[in-house]
């Protein structure tokens, strides 16, 4: 009965946006996949959905009271001296269910890299050939990325410690159109990358210190590659778009060379193009007020993959290492909240992020704040989440950027694995 609402809300589209970094290398890594995590400046390690539960941390899923289908989308806007751009992103779609008090299982899909670009060459070359003056300029357009289809199980280790193992199957594709304009003639060169690979993620938690004056829970995460990402690179024959319609076709006047005469795309495999190491740690301090929490999170990510020139002609501004430190505050609603005001969960956070560009050529700092809230509704504790982020990225080799992001999340609950009384 709740599913139609999910469809309706998820069809909303937002303003569109582009950071210069999303055009380089594999694109821009997507770290946060839910509105609840974003509103606490978290990359998903610490609880943010409800008390003790993070949608992105399967080791916390045993605290879910219901099975949840969760969907999140976001709208980004990036402003800089280069211009203002934006894009909408699908953040995640996930199903998770607790099995008893110590076990949980879930699966979902989420983007790993968003690779979108529309670039114009900053300079136009002019040279003379056989007495003719030729002006040339490059244009690059592309879109695609890498996504993850994942599943995770949570299980206990000791009375106080729990663990979760997540398997990520990576997939995706990327289409790129490099255009060379020679005076008024356009040559297109289409390329396509088809990705595949797999990752593991190991989560640990301990409530051994969840006692005393300031009870605390500890969360850890480590991740790496099972089979590092590889790309099947398809290179298509360049052609002159004689009829100026943007396609390689025979509509008069036919493009050159004739589409029927060109060979098949050349295919080559590039291995180990993404080989990450990730580590995350979080602390969740429960305040005296029973439902208020102060949390801290550290998250490190580094890509050790090979980025060949043939596959990645643009990589100088690729972020291949990122560290984030965040402090956040949350006031969760109680399970038995009755009034609307009691059903709202308040969240906020500040973060500092330090990114290294490809091969440590330079670094970028970003800091910002996030706020958000969630509203429970319905008997199954469904939840609507909203988050807003405002960040400043400075020290960039191209231009400082102002980043704004809005994320919506919808979580629909249902009872699973509960014996119902016969009527």
């Amino acid at each position, binding site marked *: 009965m709740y*599913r139609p609402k*999910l*469809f309706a809300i*998820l069809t909303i*589209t937002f303003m*569109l*946006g*582009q950071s*210069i970094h999303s*055009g380089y290398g594999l694109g821009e890594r997507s770290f946060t996949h839910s509105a609840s995590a974003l509103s606490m400046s978290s990359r998903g390690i610490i609880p943010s959905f409800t008390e003790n539960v993070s949608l992105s941390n399967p080791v916390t899923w045993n605290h879910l009271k219901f099975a949840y*289908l969760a*969907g999140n989308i976001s709208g*980004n806007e990036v402003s800089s001296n*280069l*211009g*203002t*751009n*934006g*894009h*909408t992103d*699908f953040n995640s*779609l996930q*199903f998770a269910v607790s099995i008893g008090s110590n076990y949980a299982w879930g699966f979902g*899909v989420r983007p790993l890299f*968003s690779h979108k*670009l*529309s*670039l*114009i*060459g*900053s*300079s136009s070359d002019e040279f003379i*050939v056989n007495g003719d003056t030729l002006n*040339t300029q*490059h*244009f*690059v*357009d592309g*879109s695609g990325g890498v996504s993850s289809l994942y599943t995770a199980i949570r299980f206990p280790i000791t009375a106080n410690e729990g663990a979760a193992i997540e398997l990520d199957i990576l997939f995706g594709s990327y289409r790129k159109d*490099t255009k*060379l304009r*020679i005076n008024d*003639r356009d*040559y297109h*060169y289409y390329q396509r990358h088809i990705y595949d690979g797999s990752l593991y993620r190991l989560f640990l938690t301990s409530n051994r210190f969840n006692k005393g004056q300031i009870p605390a829970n500890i969360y850890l995460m480590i991740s790496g590659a099972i089979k590092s990402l590889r790309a099947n690179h398809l*290179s298509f024959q*360049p*052609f*002159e778009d004689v009829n100026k319609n943007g396609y390689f076709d025979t509509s008069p006047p036919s493009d*050159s*060379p004739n589409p029927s*005469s*060109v060979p098949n795309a*050349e295919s080559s495999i590039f291995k180990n193009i993404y080989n990450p190491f990730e580590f995350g740690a979080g602390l969740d301090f429960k305040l005296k007020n029973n439902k208020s929490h102060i949390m801290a999170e550290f998250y490190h990510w580094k890509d050790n993959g090979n980025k060949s*020139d*043939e596959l990645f*002609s*643009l990589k100088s501004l690729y972020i291949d290492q990122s560290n984030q430190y965040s402090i956040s505050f949350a006031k969760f609603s109680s399970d038995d909240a009755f009034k609307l005001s009691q059903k709202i969960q308040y969240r906020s956070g500040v973060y500092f992020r330090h990114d290294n560009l490809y091969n440590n050529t330079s670094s970028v700092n970003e800091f910002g704040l996030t706020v958000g809230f969630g509203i429970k509704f319905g008997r199954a504790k469904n939840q609507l989440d909203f988050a807003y982020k405002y960040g400043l990225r400075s020290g960039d080799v*191209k231009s400082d950027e102002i980043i704004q992001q809005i994320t919506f999340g919808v979580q629909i609950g249902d009872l*699973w694995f509960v014996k119902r009384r016969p009527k």
Partner: protein
Amino acid sequence: MKLLYLTSVLVTGTFLISINGCMEEPLHADLSNENLELDTLHLYDIEGETYQIPPSIGSKTRLSLGVDGEFEYKAILLKTSFVSSESVQLSYASLLDSNILIDSAFFTVYLTTDTLINPISFSLFSFPDQGDSVFSESKSHYLNFTETEIALGQYEASALEEESEFMVDSVANSVFRARFNVSDMLDSTFMDSSLNYTVMLTLDNDDGNLHSVYSREYSSLENTTPKLDVYFKQFTYADSADTSQDTQIDTLQRSFKVISDLSILVPPDILDEDSSFISISRGKGLRSLISLNFLDTLALPNQTTFDKAELIFHIVPDTTISSFTLYAIPLQDTVELTNFTYFDEDLFDTFSYLTVSGTVSDNQVVFNIKRFLQDHYFNHIDNLGIKLYSSVNNSIHSTVHLYSNADSLLYPKLFIQYVSP
């Protein structure tokens, strides 16, 4: 319930994945490392050799007799259609019907002259004994249609050049023609058993001048096509089994227009420069083969797309050449030609779809052979050379001499401009 739940997951997931953002404004970036580059090449090792074939004078708007400088036009061959232009139901054979009585028949050609000072006399011949093939527009020439073949013609009639008037929109127009009375020619042999329907035109007296008539290619609108007009009576009986009863008589005229025609031209002897340069001439039948052997070992980047491929020749300056168009067409077969050679016919097959033209301008001629190079690069065709020959619209008196590889500074070259990843 659970099944519906899982279905929602899958459907919603598919839907969400289909939601993609898109960009608004392109950003400026350093794209100098982008892997689509423009480059050029100049290649010079181009060989050429000339050969001669009998000149092909078909597909022209005029047919000629007489002398034109060093060229001599010995005869005009014309073949009419076997059905009338007014009705395809009426053929030569149907004129043999017993209900038809031919009154008269005239074969008419229209002259290109605009004065009538010294009327010229022409003779018309037929070939009743030559089967169904007397000549070919594309293959007949002065070497296979010699005085011997000309002598096989059976004289039918003579005619003097005359002026004739015809009305167009109530306005009288004047035209010059030669009209042959061929009533006697339309016997059962010509109309039935002989299928060639070919006649030959010659000059009765060679006055040292050139005399031309309009060919079938000249214009389909101005009615200048050579034709054979037949005037006849057609009897129609109320009862076809009883011809003694009342009869309806229709007097009719039908035309059988010419469907192929050709002048037999005897060219002059070739000159030394015709064989020492890469030479092209329509009148002399000079053609040339160009070798671009370096293409087979040319190392071009992977997935090269040609932007320009200009085969450039410099011509030996000649003030008499005002407009001259040449064709270049890749060969289908391997040809070994090491010096000037004469052939009875052009046997070198070509890829007609790759034909390109070039017009002499500023003492050079440029052929755009981009498609040939691209197809060769894709290994669709072999590099067996390129044939150069003259357009049929060029003057028969013009011969273009192109500098060969042996001529310093003005040797031919191939300029390639290409893009590649």
